[in-house]
């Protein structure tokens, strides 16, 4: 690839990659980045999108100063556990994070591409994208992945950002066509998403404290793991716990494993007492 070519003037790394190295995009296949493998578009006409069955629970919940974003650690291959420690929550930049449900490979690649995309824009333009701009960009990336959905490679994210202009945390969910919908309070996706949403509905109220929101998030993951085979719960034997991040005005921070462990220890203690 030429180092100094002036046929692209935009500030998007994603567009640059799609133009010059389509093979490096998550859904790229050589010279035909958007052509589905081995079948013509006509064959898809009327074909239903395959059922979205990806073993995962990831969620986000708002609190007074930001958003908690958390996910379990299990990856499955059919009825087998493929990985017990996979990470599904990614830091994207200083003020945003995303969590993903879907096929692990394309999901991780999309997160990495999105990280590069935002950093690239910031360096070229001198200022970072707005929170809304970041959410829309992710929508375009999900949309570009649509042909792969017909082959069963679904990538569905939740995006969480702290909007520095509005001074509040925001949650965005997506559909496979790249549709972007803002959630006002909390959301969960993946095979255990419904269980997690039900669990959060019970306890959510406006202006939660950070500690309460984290507690509700971890509880919801526990409930999801209880009901859903695709979702892993806290594993005290191996020392594997769900991961969580706090996206706030001061920046993004990981919740330390020790804190997650002690919250789960307390939760299990009360469960044992209750019988």
């Amino acid at each position, binding site marked *: 690839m030429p*180092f100094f070519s002036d046929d692209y003037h935009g500030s998007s*790394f994603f567009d640059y*990659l799609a133009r010059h*190295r389509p093979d*490096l995009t998550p859904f790229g296949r050589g010279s035909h980045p958007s052509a589905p493998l081995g079948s013509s578009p006509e064959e898809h006409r009327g074909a239903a999108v395959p059922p979205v069955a990806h073993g995962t629970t990831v969620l986000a919940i708002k609190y007074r100063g930001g958003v908690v974003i958390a996910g379990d650690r299990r990856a499955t291959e059919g009825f087998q556990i493929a990985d017990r420690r996979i990470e599904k929550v990614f830091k994207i930049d200083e003020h945003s994070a995303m969590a993903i449900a879907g096929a692990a490979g394309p999901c991780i690649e999309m997160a990495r591409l999105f990280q590069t995309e935002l950093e690239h824009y910031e*360096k070229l333009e001198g200022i970072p994208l707005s929170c809304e701009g970041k959410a829309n960009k992710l929508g375009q990336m999900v949309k570009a992945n649509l042909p792969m959905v017909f082959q069963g490679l679904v990538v569905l994210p939740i995006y969480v950002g702290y909007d520095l202009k509005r001074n509040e945390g925001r949650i965005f969910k997506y559909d496979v066509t790249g549709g972007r919908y803002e959630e006002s309070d909390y959301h969960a996706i993946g095979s255990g998403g419904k269980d997690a949403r039900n669990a959060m509905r019970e306890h959510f109220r406006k202006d939660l404290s950070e500690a309460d929101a984290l507690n509700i998030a971890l509880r919801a993951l526990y409930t999801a793991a209880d009901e859903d085979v695709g979702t892993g719960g806290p594993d005290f034997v191996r020392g594997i716990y769900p991961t969580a991040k706090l996206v706030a005005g001061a920046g993004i921070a990981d919740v330390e494993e020790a804190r997650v462990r002690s919250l789960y220890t307390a939760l299990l203690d009360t469960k044992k007492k209750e019988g």
Partner: protein
Amino acid sequence: MAMPYYVSPEQMMQDKAEYAKKGIAKGRSLIAMEYQDGVLLVADNPSASLYKISEVYDSIALSGAGKYSEFENLRKAGIRHADLKGFMYSREDVTARSLANAYSQTLGTVFSQELKPMEVEILVVQVGNNGTSNEIYRISFDGSIFDERGYAVIGGRAEAVQIFLKERYKQMSPLKEALSLCLAALENVTNQKLPLEGLEVAVLARDRAGRKFRRVPAAEARQILG
């Protein structure tokens, strides 16, 4: 049809070089200087939004003197090159050396093949980490590349600034000393007091996690100078 005039290659190169040098000398000077915790970049730049110094990657910064539009295109190309490489391989595989080589190739090709050479001079700077030393590459308008130690100056009356710094530069000096030395050098050649608002200051600070580039606003520069 009129016969084209014959111009000897020597004459042509000389004319081009003169043209480029003149363009670059018209601007103001820019200094990159190693200090205790990284590399300091100071540019005499009255604009608060048209930058001469830019972040390229985790530990790499770029600065340029000369024609703004040409530098801007080179800057964008550099960031694309770095981000593509980091995405394709890994973040640690992006190096100032490979970037400096790419710039050298580009400027060299343009200088020898195009009618108009680029009127830019570039510094590619990388802060060392875990015991590796800092790297400062100066790339001239004709693509020639120089590996500088301690400090480097481009643009404006670069040679005069260099002479001033040669007598006064000390290795491993703290940020405060390095910044005041750069300021003194720029004031010396321009023969005027420079307001801190008229300077563009940035550092590649070794102790920062992840992206090491940071702009230093005028208020903070004043605080550093004490």
